[in-house]
């Protein structure tokens, strides 16, 4: 039991933060989503969401692409392969430990 608990120490802290976990969990369920969708789905403020997305992008977990759809700016976000692996590993560790 203690060995299982100890695996929690190695958990990814970037993904573990609740707001970022919500973003990663949402992106893991879709191919891609834009900023507005994530804003509505997570309930985070736009500023807060932007900060967390930047952190995830810096870590290489989320790829962000800024385009336009007609006149509207569109910020597309998708989970990278690395992000997907980290999230799967996070789930595995949490399931095993708790």
């Amino acid at each position, binding site marked *: 039991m203690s060995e299982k608990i100890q695996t929690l120490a190695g958990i990814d802290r970037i993904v573990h933060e609740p707001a970022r976990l*919500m973003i990663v*969990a*949402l992106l*893991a*369920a*879709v*191919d*891609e*989503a*834009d*900023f*507005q*969708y*994530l*804003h*509505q*789905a*997570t*309930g985070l403020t736009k500023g807060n969401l932007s900060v967390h997305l930047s952190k995830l992008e810096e870590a290489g977990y989320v790829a962000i692409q800024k385009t336009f*759809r007609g006149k*509207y700016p*569109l910020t*597309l976000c998708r989970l990278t392969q690395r992000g997907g692996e980290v999230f799967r590993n996070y*789930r595995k560790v949490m399931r095993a430990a708790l």
Partner: protein
Amino acid sequence: MMSLLHRSSSTAAPDALARRMMQDTHLRDGLPEIVVGGILLLVAAQSYTMAVLLHGGLLVLKRILILVWTLLVIALTFSSFSIPGATGTGWLLRWLRRRYLISRSGYVKPRSEWNKRQLALLGGIGLLVATALLLVRREVAPPLFDRGLFIAIGVFVGGIEALVGRHPRFRAMGLLTVACGILVGFSRLPLQLRFAVFYAFTGAMALISGAIVLARFLRANAEEE
């Protein structure tokens, strides 16, 4: 969405939760129901036309009208519910959402859930059911068969609605569809007219439900803005 995460996270497996989230997203603006409702109403109109035109002698003009109308509805239904057609309907939904709703609701591209094996299995089951129906029709007297057919269609369509939709509104629609199937099955109307009534009822129900959901969705997003 948030409430869904909170409500289900303790019980559902993450993949199931993700699928449910995507389904919620797909159904949140009511557009899929509006499209399906519209198609069912067209099918009902076709059945009604057939019922009216078939009543009495078949003139050449009537025959041509029936043929054209039937081909039109078959083409439309095929283009909506078949595998390649579902892509067309999906394209229409995406276009409508990108054109009119993206600034309010955001854009999300769901993962494709159906693989070729599942689709082949579904097609196989459909073929088996159709063959079984043909065999049963040979053995059972027409009035009894027709009654059973409508009840079976009602239970099947209603069950699919309730199980796949999972939302309370789909469960209610599923129940009403079953009730409609039973009522239409026991009615003494001609067969074509019974089909018309059944499709009209289910189509109108889907259309009204979709319109209400869309109106609420637009109002909620306008309030947020």
